[in-house]
């Protein structure tokens, strides 16, 4: 064996050992600081973990762009809504007076709020873009109560790591980490462009997560569950989306 190739061999060995131990350390740190998404298993796990970890490190407190009133889309697109059924129609006929938002899980004071109560909480509005994973988008003014306000109201436990939220359409449920749950732009919205939030756009109550794609902005929200263990929900992948083959984290 020549000197050169022995040196190359030693260097390669050292680089390989360093990268392997670096990866192990990185994985441990990522786990400790909550940088691993619930759908980190499987062949696309590494890419998802890199995206989620990188964005959590770089963008934890950043605000989504807000737009001027003149930039509000004249023709927003509601997207397809599968029929909501008789139960929903009855609620709609009663002007959603009987709509309830249940908040449970790791909270000091579990609650069931009426829509009127939710609307009585401090409100915030922002003009932001909603982007569908398919590629289309629109800008609207969204009005609602900051999710952080609701979490404070029910006394969220300090160990809470995720907020799971469910839709009236029971197949749909989502979850976000605390960086998004406590984010000032994350709202439970009931108003759009100055009026009531139309049913097509998720009325009477829609989650708005401004720094993620549209599917995290779940329509027809009926329940919030605060948890420190996301694995116990559904198939343990964090939301209904990964069960259908889509990424849990949609910051893209």
């Amino acid at each position, binding site marked *: 064996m020549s000197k050169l190739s022995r040196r190359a061999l030693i260097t390669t060995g050292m680089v390989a050992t360093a990268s392997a131990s670096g990866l192990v350390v990185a994985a441990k740190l990522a786990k400790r600081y909550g940088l691993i998404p619930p759908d980190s298993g499987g062949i696309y796990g590494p890419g998802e973990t890199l995206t989620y970890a990188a964005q959590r490190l770089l963008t934890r407190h950043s605000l989504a762009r807000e737009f001027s009133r003149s930039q509000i889309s004249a023709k927003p697109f509601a997207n397809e809504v599968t029929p909501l059924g008789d139960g929903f129609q009855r609620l709609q006929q009663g002007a959603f007076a009987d709509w309830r938002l249940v908040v449970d899980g790791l909270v000091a004071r579990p609650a069931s709020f009426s829509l009127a109560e939710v609307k009585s909480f401090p409100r915030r509005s922002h003009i932001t873009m909603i982007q569908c994973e*398919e590629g289309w988008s629109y800008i609207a003014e969204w009005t609602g109560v900051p999710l952080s306000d609701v979490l404070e109201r029910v006394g969220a436990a300090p160990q809470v790591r995720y907020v799971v939220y469910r839709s009236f359409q029971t197949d749909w449920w989502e979850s976000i980490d605390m960086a998004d749950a406590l984010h000032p732009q994350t709202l439970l919205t009931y108003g759009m462009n100055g009026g009531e939030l139309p049913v097509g756009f998720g009325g009477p109550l829609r989650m708005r997560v401004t720094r993620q794609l549209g599917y995290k902005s779940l329509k027809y929200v009926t329940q919030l569950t605060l948890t420190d263990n996301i694995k116990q929900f559904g198939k343990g992948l964090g939301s209904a989306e990964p069960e259908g083959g889509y990424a849990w984290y949609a*910051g893209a």
Partner: protein
Amino acid sequence: MAETPRPRHSILVRVTHWLITLAFLALLVSGLEIVVSHPRFYWGEVGNVNTAPLFQIPIPSSRNLVPTAYGYVLPDQNGWSRYLHFQSAWVLVLVALLYGLAGLFNGHFRRNLLPSLSDVSPKRLASSIVEHFRFKRPRAEEAWSYNLLQRLAYLLVIFVLFPMIIWTGLAMSPSFVSAVPAAVNFLGGQQSARTLHFFLTWALVLFVLVHIFMVFLAGFRSRMRAMITGRAPEPLERV
């Protein structure tokens, strides 16, 4: 013909070349699949089926609310396409960073890609273009170095097209632009970024097609061997 001990392409160039090839193919396939869910393109910040597109590709869609000329809807494949697209993007970005930093420090760019000053003249450029359009098999010494047009094409791909396609991709990420709003504002909006991303894809596809054509013209076996094993025939004058 004698084999040289020195590789035609360094191990780093060879490994990164094929990793980027793989990542690019995965990005291309998954990217085109994602386009199928909304084959309409817009300019500015926003666009959806209720607004007029800049243009629409005449293909069927995987969403039934997208108006197309076809009476059927394709199955939704965006789940794996998006997972694969972003994972491949990470491979591409990390490998490209390794290649770029190494090339900067070990002189690969300066030595092998930067044309010599005397070569960058309209006359030289014109003659290089004419030579290419004659589709002549390159001279033997070109097995060991890149010609002028080749250098310029590689520099364009490495320092303009790839950085631009990564940038326009990041400009579509709602989370990334929340931290770096200038990334999308500078491009004129999120839909502009998407449209540019699409055109940059075709620029890179065009490069790949011409690149493969030139490999065949220069001698498929010898060029592939040089990029896989590093071995290449000795230049004639050295035999």
